[in-house]
């Protein structure tokens, strides 16, 4: 990455709340016009980092720059450059969609005329024109989220910061929102979004930073992260959920790393460098133990596997619970 392309820089950022250390030294870089997905479970420190980027919170240590501007010392200038959509849809239920957007436009310093015009533009882009003059209290969850995102676009920001934009949305609305985010990125917006969903990071992000307990434990493109995992994965699906733990014990030592259980999916995955050899060995052991399985195969690793193996290294006491199960 060339130095001049670092549009967002986070260097050694630490933040504590009382005795809780929310961020324990975070370093990040985002190139202009790209999407960084900040991936982590509940409590990993995502919101804290995002609030620092949005000038809402000052770091205890370290520095954060957006477009070369320090977010603490040049906060006012930074606020003119960014759009922020927080973890909860921050729209007024008693105001109409249009009123919400016009308010934000006015607070960006736009004239009444321009604020009105921008609100129209945003409403149209987000297909909310029909509902524009209804109170937000009557909107569905998806519409609220769209309006909230719209509010962060009124100022035509160069950098968009979104905290878990699709958490709590139904799958269809989520896909709509992804398409919309793609569109923004095509127009050149630099985007930093947080998510608990690997699928979302994989789908949207050019680069991913995995954050766990206030630290970035891995960073790179989705492909790099998958390669870092190395090799393939043998996957077994148990017929009975009670057999998952037994399978973990049974397959231990066969692969290139320890087996991992996904309790919700009733699956056990095992990283391996030698596909066929490991598969056959696993099949033999399963047969000898007489465990009934629905499926057994070899596949390429997914981001889920990467995340599992990464968080497993940092949370040795609970290695077998997947993030999907833990954050549901």
């Amino acid at each position, binding site marked *: 990455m060339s*130095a*001049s392309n*670092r*549009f967002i*820089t986070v260097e050694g950022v630490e933040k504590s709340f009382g005795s809780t250390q929310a961020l324990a030294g975070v370093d990040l870089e985002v190139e*202009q016009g790209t999407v960084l997905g900040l991936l982590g479970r509940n409590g990993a420190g995502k919101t804290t980092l995002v*609030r620092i980027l*949005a*000038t*809402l*919170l*000052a770091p205890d240590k370290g520095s954060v*720059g957006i*477009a*070369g*501007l320090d977010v603490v010392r040049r906060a*006012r*200038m930074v*606020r*003119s*450059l*960014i759009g*922020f959509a*927080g*973890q*909860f*849809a*921050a*729209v*007024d239920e*008693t*105001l109409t969609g249009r*009123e919400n957007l016009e*308010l*934000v436009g*006015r*607070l*960006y*310093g736009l004239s009444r005329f321009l604020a009105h015009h921008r609100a129209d533009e945003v409403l149209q882009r987000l297909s909310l024109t029909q509902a524009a003059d209804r*109170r937000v209290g009557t909107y569905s969850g998806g519409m609220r989220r769209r309006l909230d995102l719209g*509010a962060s676009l009124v*100022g035509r920001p*160069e950098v968009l910061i979104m905290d878990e934009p699709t958490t709590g949305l139904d799958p269809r609305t989520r896909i709509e929102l992804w398409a919309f985010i793609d569109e923004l990125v095509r127009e050149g917006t630099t985007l930093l979004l947080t998510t608990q969903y690997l699928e979302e990071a994989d789908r949207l992000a050019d680069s991913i930073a995995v954050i766990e307990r206030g630290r970035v434990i891995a960073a790179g493109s989705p492909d790099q992260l998958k390669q870092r995992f190395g090799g393939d994965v043998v996957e077994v699906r148990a017929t009975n959920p009670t057999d998952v733990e037994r399978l973990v014990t049974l397959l231990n030592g066969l692969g290139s790393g320890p087996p991992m259980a996904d309790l919700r999916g009733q699956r056990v995955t095992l990283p391996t460098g030698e596909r066929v050899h490991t598969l056959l060995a696993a099949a033999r052991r399963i047969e000898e133990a007489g465990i009934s399985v629905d499926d057994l195969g070899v596949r390429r690793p997914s981001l889920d596997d990467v995340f599992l193996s990464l968080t497993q290294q940092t949370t040795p006491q609970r290695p077998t619970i997947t993030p999907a199960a833990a954050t549901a």
Partner: protein
Amino acid sequence: MSTAAFDLAANRRTVRPQGVRAFITDTLVLTRRNLLVSLRTPQLVVAAAIMPVMFVLLFRYVFGGSIHVAGYPSYVDFLIPGIIVQTSLFGGSSSAVSVAEDLSKGVTDRFRSLPTQRGAILTARTLADLVRLTYTTGLMIAIGLLVGFRFHNSLPPILGGIGIALLFGYACSWLFTLLGLVVRNVEAATLLAFVVTFPLVFAASTFTSTETMPGWLRTFANGQPVTHVINALRALTQGTGSAEGPVLYALAWSVGILVISATLATRRFRTV
């Protein structure tokens, strides 16, 4: 870090000027928003009026007959100034709840992430309170006149008295804004508002003279701001006794609460 290219990019954008004009515009825009929100929450508008009206009716017609205060041949003339100040305090206390609500809903985060004057956010909050307060005060006077309340003084002191009551209410609105910023949570703010207002309103000269209270209670009642403000308002609207002492105390308390609360709230707001 090589930043020259981005500095250029940043400077090309119209970065919002941050002068007095921006402050005034932002304050007006946000005050309008706060008033719209409360206007469209009919429960709030009605609740703001209904409680004091109930108190007026209760004390005028139920208890009033058996309450006699020296110097006030008609109890209603004693009662209405008390009700007006009570209403200011209750009105201000709703600020704690609205502030906590905006914080927990993320509305405050949104506003603070915009190139908006941060001072304008809190100023607008309290100005909207002041507008509401003026409305409820007017309403209380109108109702008072309907149930027999009369002014017994010339217009300037009457207006002065009402001004002091509004100033006190405005100061309380800053005080409760500060409390809302500290507790952050809607339920806690509701409880706290109640716990703070209750003794101030009832251990005071609101409904009866403090003379008949036991010593320890009288000491508290006579020292605390609500009694001073009510006494000032009574003296100025009824021409009873010397107004100078209560007016000075009322002003000192109001300005003191206002300056300290506004300073602490503004400081607190930077790090919420």
